[in-house]
């Protein structure tokens, strides 16, 4: 794990705008916090009177200090960008491109689909075994503590998740890759489900 921010190729040219947007975004965030969010979502104010009648900090005290400190820093960031024109204004500049957002969207989609498959595989397996006359259970919840039902969703969903991202990195998916994904998921099941008593694999803790 690198301890430095990742260098991006897309950084400098015109990328200074990102710092400008970041500074402006921080100012907007501070305004929203102070004017809308904090008054509605914090139970006590900046200061409050305690049981002995003494004035003490309330729950909004520290958040307001933090957001208050963000304001001058954001202003500095904005002014340094405006004064520096197209130059970097002293701060390294990154960039989030449309391609980056597309990648993120794809990643979110993979994770969401895999989690849905994790959730649906167990009930689907119960329906299938009921239909075939192998079991007679009321639903997945009734067998969510029984192997293989309890691990079925995680096995299928986990394999799908790993395979999906292997396809993303390699631009192809070989049978060997699916095998690696399935084996990894099986090892996780062995560790968390087989060796440990007090933990539950997805989706069993949320039934």
């Amino acid at each position, binding site marked *: 794990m690198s*301890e430095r921010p990742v260098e991006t190729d897309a950084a400098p040219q015109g990328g200074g705008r990102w710092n400008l947007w970041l500074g402006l975004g*921080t100012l907007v965030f501070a305004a929203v916090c102070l004017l809308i969010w904090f008054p509605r979502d914090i*139970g006590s104010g900046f200061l409050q009177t305690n049981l002995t009648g003494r004035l003490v900090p309330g729950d909004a005290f520290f958040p307001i200090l933090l957001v208050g400190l963000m304001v001058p820093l954001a202003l500095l960031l904005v002014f340094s960008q405006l004064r520096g024109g197209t130059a970097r204004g002293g701060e390294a500049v990154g960039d989030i491109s449309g391609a980056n957002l597309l990648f993120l969207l794809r990643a979110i989609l993979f994770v969401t689909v895999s989690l849905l498959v994790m959730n649906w595989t167990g009930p689907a397996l119960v329906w299938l075994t009921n239909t075939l006359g192998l079991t007679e259970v009321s639903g997945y919840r009734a067998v969510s503590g029984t192997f293989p039902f309890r691990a079925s969703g995680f096995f299928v969903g986990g394999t799908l998740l790993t395979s999906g991202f292997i396809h993303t990195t390699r631009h192809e998916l070989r049978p060997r890759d699916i095998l690696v994904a399935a084996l990894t998921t099986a090892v996780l099941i062995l560790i968390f489900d087989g060796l440990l008593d007090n933990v539950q694999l997805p989706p069993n803790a949320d039934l």
Partner: protein
Amino acid sequence: MDLVLQYIGLGVTSVFTGAEGGLWLMPLAMVVVGVLVGILVGATPGLSGPFAMAIALPVLVSIFGYSNEALYPVLGCLVGIMKGATVGGAVPAILFNTPGTPDAFLTTLDGNPMARKGLGRKAIQTAHFSSVMGDNFSDIVLFVAAPIIAVGVERVLGLPEKSALIILSLCFMAAVVGGAPLKGLIGGLLGMFVSLVGSTLSGNGPRLTFGIPELGGGLPLTSCVLGVLVLSEVLISIEDMRNERRRQTTPPEAPEMGPKLTWGERGRMLPGILRGATIGTLIGALPGIGTTTAATLSYDTAKRRSKEPESFGQGNPQGVVATESANSAVSGANLIPVMSLGIPGNFAAVFIILAVETIGDFAFGPQVFRFTPIREIEGFDTILNKDLVMAFGLFTMMVMANAVNWTVGGFLMGLLGYLVRIPKDVMLPVILTVSLTAAYVQDGGYLGLLSACGFALIGYALRRLDISILPFVIGFLLAPTLEGLVRGAYTASGGDALFLVKSPISLVMLALSVFLLVRMVRQARRA
């Protein structure tokens, strides 16, 4: 002195004593496991110690639970991974010119030319010897310095000064890590802000939850750090690999290993090791400055002092000595601010602090090193500072990890060349699945998993926008402490608005914070 020795004795024995009072070897076993895993992880390009610590922590918590008894095995394993990884990273750097960890990059400069000359075994043994010596040196400094600093801090600093110290540390980190001090500090404040979600100090119900009841208990700490540190980096690496559109090429065959390192050669390395370890220790004791800086500084110093500076980069063993002794010395020294002040200075230290915050009731900070007189009260219990016993227990496990590194580490390093063949394009997706599973398992369901995903997106954005991650994470971890200190200082001042600048010490610290930031911004502008 007697009291110190008594506490050291209690610390050592506590590692080997179970809850029932019998012999307990689990911490020792976990140290061994940790070092072995750390060496393997370090020798695998694309993985690093903090990466493995992030994934190991939820697994270890699942195995050992949250009680005080769990702390030794969990910390033992994490310390082992941290130490093992610093050693293992040199193997692929030397044999295949591919650093296993980022800090082993400079080892490639002389290590790989040595291997290509048929001196692979000598280069690996040089790296191992320098690395373990450097690590041992910095541990000794830690054992001595941490209690002294902590006692000093406890005597001199009150609530406002401690608050100012945390602010100074954050500013220092923002200033030195990355090239964007202003954005780094905004990131640090954002990290602090996010950690307040779901918390309350005035008993008026959880704050900043958007009315979502699941957030009422606060954000799950480990999953959030896992997301912002590990998952975000995995996502970026996966995206970069996808964009590069090229397969990982198979590395060449391992070169001829050649003769062993002699004891005479080891002896001649000692001055270089001492110099590198001193540089690494000094750099490591400052929060935020990583191993790469220490290794670079040490390499440059060794080159400048050498009678044959032109031989550096051509396979000079002193180059390997300089980089490995310095980057390994950082790991022990990084725990000086952790143990004495409760302030983590790098990613490995973050996971040590996270383990301590998650398990039991032990907490790092200056209060740990209070040498309370040990008194046995008949029919009751023994009065002593249990945190201090625990601290000496941790030191004991570090010594144990060093012993494993000395013995098994050296043997194992020679066998690890094949790990470079593990394809990164398959390994990264596997890490992603393991991390998400760990987040779900550790934090009891989708709240943990979704928090990890959410923080992965935050980490991704921070990294892409060149905002340093470290201040964000440190801010996230230190916010509860800082809030407690600031509120306490304000109340103690009787509601004085200038409560933070009334004390000369805190005023100096805050002025230093501003000075650091202004200087870094100006320097960056000139660059």
